[in-house]
């Protein structure tokens, strides 16, 4: 066993690759949450009155709500009064080019491998970089504008496209939806906004990189994506965060609206600081509400996520299949190593006729990690000939981790066709020896087995993310063999 122990030690001692902080002067308001703080956020952002009222209403509702405790996550309560609800890099005069951006900020992006320079142009990716709470710069605007695509920060959208924002904000995730969504509605700082006009196929993958930087600053992002009739968009989201001792709360909300014959593909690679590998201390608490509505007939929403970071993950990207013949998909890889805990899955609500959903979930537990799949499939009365296929697989590495599966199924129409498959397996010593005996090293064997396990999900990612995801799995798992 000595070799295994060594390998485990090595995995445990592996440092978080992106653990560094940037010394940028920040404008931060004192910790605490009350109505005045919300007014302050709103006025700092120069928001119209209707939005402030919306925030305050959400806050009032939130005050009456309780933090949910039904998940398998084990953590001590978050002191929301100790968090500062607004942080922005000190404002400078309006920027015309990258040269004017704080060099240290650019350096941070470079360390993360997210250059905003010409490489991105060549890679044909438009990046709307969210640094803490304020969008710093946006590229590829012109190319997108040519097609009528709106891709900007949420604040800009409020200023420039208030009617669209007003129409859809909270239409998929109402302020009362859950504790964290209500909190987000009250205090959200910024985020991304995407609008694809009728019959437009977005000419490039849209990607936003989030990065939490300021100490003790909760991050409350809000994303809204609207695909008009016959349009198509693929949106990528990737995250890393610097090392911290205190738990950082992240409570984002993402809303997607797909009209008739449109398609939205939303991909995430999440690699926030998972906490100290030896003690589990620090690390991001990730409480996210992501939901999309297939409003029109023949529309489609597809979620793909690779979750390797965060100390806690509480996340259920879901689809409401209202339009007839609409399709919802959920492809997920969630990794819990060391002291990480993940409680993640999806909800598929079938309302329209001939609606179809697919769920592929792959959970990987290593170290002392706990991984839970929690999913709900609901077939409503009017959903004639609805179909669902669910596959939930778990793999265990070592004997101190856990995998749990909670599939909830609620069928109210007898014409529904449901399929559910589940499996739990373990990377065994015998598998590793078999690979070793063929000349394959243990590290390569683990990565081969895990990547094989995740293949169905990785295949759904856009090319550049698939490569990144595979690399991320290797780094996150290096040597974690038992």
């Amino acid at each position, binding site marked *: *066993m000595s*070799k*295994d122990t060594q390998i485990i030690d090595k995995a445990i001692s592996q440092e978080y690759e992106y653990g560094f902080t940037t010394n940028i002067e920040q404008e931060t308001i004192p910790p605490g949450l009350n109505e005045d703080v919300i007014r302050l956020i709103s006025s700092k952002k120069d928001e119209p009155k209707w939005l402030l009222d919306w925030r305050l209403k959400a806050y009032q509702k939130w005050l009456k709500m309780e933090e949910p405790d039904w998940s398998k996550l084990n953590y001590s309560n978050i002191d929301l009064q100790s968090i500062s609800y607004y942080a922005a890099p000190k404002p400078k005069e309006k920027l015309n080019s990258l040269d004017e951006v704080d060099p240290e900020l650019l350096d941070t992006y470079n360390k993360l491998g997210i250059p905003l320079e010409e490489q991105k142009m060549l890679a044909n990716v438009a990046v709307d970089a969210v640094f803490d709470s304020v969008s710093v710069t946006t590229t590829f605007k012109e190319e997108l504008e040519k097609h009528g695509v709106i891709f900007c920060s949420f604040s800009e959208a409020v200023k420039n496209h208030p009617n669209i924002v007003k129409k859809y904000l909270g239409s998929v995730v109402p302020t009362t939806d859950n504790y964290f969504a209500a909190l987000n509605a009250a205090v959200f700082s910024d985020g991304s906004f995407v609008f694809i006009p009728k019959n437009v196929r977005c000419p490039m993958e849209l990607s936003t990189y989030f990065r939490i930087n300021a100490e003790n600053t909760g991050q409350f992002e809000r994303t809204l994506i609207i695909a008009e009739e016959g349009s198509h968009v693929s949106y990528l989201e990737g995250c890393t965060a610097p090392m911290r001792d205190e738990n950082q709360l992240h409570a984002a909300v993402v809303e997607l609206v797909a009209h008739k014959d449109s398609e939205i593909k939303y991909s995430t690679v999440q690699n926030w600081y998972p906490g100290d590998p030896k003690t589990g201390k620090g690390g991001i608490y990730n409480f996210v509400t992501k939901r999309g509505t297939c409003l029109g007939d023949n529309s489609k929403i597809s979620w793909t996520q690779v979750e390797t970071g965060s100390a806690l993950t509480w996340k259920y990207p879901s689809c409401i299949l209202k339009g007839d013949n609409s399709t919802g998909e959920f492809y997920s890889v969630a990794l819990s190593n060391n002291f990480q805990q993940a409680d993640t899955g999806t909800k598929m609500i079938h309302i329209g006729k001939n609606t179809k959903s697919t769920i592929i979930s792959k959970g990987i537990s290593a170290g002392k990690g706990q991984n839970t799949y929690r999913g709900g499939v609901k077939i409503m009365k009017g959903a004639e000939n609805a179909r669902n296929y669910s596959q939930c697989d778990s793999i265990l590495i070592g004997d101190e981790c856990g995998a749990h599966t909670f599939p909830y199924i609620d069928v109210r129409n007898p014409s529904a066709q449901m399929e559910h498959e589940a499996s739990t*397996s373990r990377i*065994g*010593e*015998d*598998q590793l*020896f*078999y*690979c*070793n*005996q*063929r*000349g*394959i*090293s*243990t590290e*390569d064997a683990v990565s*081969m*087995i895990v990547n*094989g*396990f*995740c*293949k169905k999900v990785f295949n759904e990612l856009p090319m550049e993310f698939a490569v990144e995801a595979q690399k991320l799995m290797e780094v996150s798992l290096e040597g974690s063999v038992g």
Partner: protein
Amino acid sequence: MLEIKNLHAGIDGKTILNGINLKIKPGELHAIMGRNGSGKSTLANIITGREDYEVISGTVHFNGNNILDMSPEDRALNGIFMSFQYPVVIPGVNNTYFLRAALNSKLKHNGLKEVNAADFMHLIREKLKLVQMDEKYLSRAVNDGFSGGEKKRNEILQMLTLEPQLSILDETDSGLDIDALKIVAEGVNNFRDKERSFLAITHYQRLLDHMNPDYVHVLIDGKIVKSGDMKLAHELEEKGYSWLEA
């Protein structure tokens, strides 16, 4: 090629091998026969370097090098191959991908150029014919849903692809019907040449009938008690093992 001297070894503090001496020269096929628990599989596991097996005393040299301190993958890369008694299932890992990774690992070790996917397909199609396996196995996960016979043929396919110097065939005949047995034996026979050596571990002579070993050794209580040729195997089949026991 392989030289084992006075090997004492065991597992979990229990001694199983009590002084094994064995020398296999290039081109030879040796068979080791013995009852369950006689130490046959322990010997195979010691040679291939499986964890948890402990060497108490004695030496194992392969091509003049002491291999007991080498990792299992280094032993494999240096030319030692084992056809497993119970080949392991690796879900999600494509058979072709696995085999190419193994071959490339070896080519790299030998300072040779790795083989690309297209060239590998050419190579593997030829090898498949030798063990009469259908191409559909290539796209399936390693040993996943394979019958006992298919698994064993897959092991021989791997041997033919990796071209080891020493092949240990651990109970390769178990779970095979007569036809599959013939295919496997032929696969091995066609692979034999002046340089390659084999160590076949088995209960029965039926595999040996097809292979015609140069030497047959009888293992009882972790010791080779008698060595001979094919005649010895036939004698064992007739009389059992008890007449050799002390």
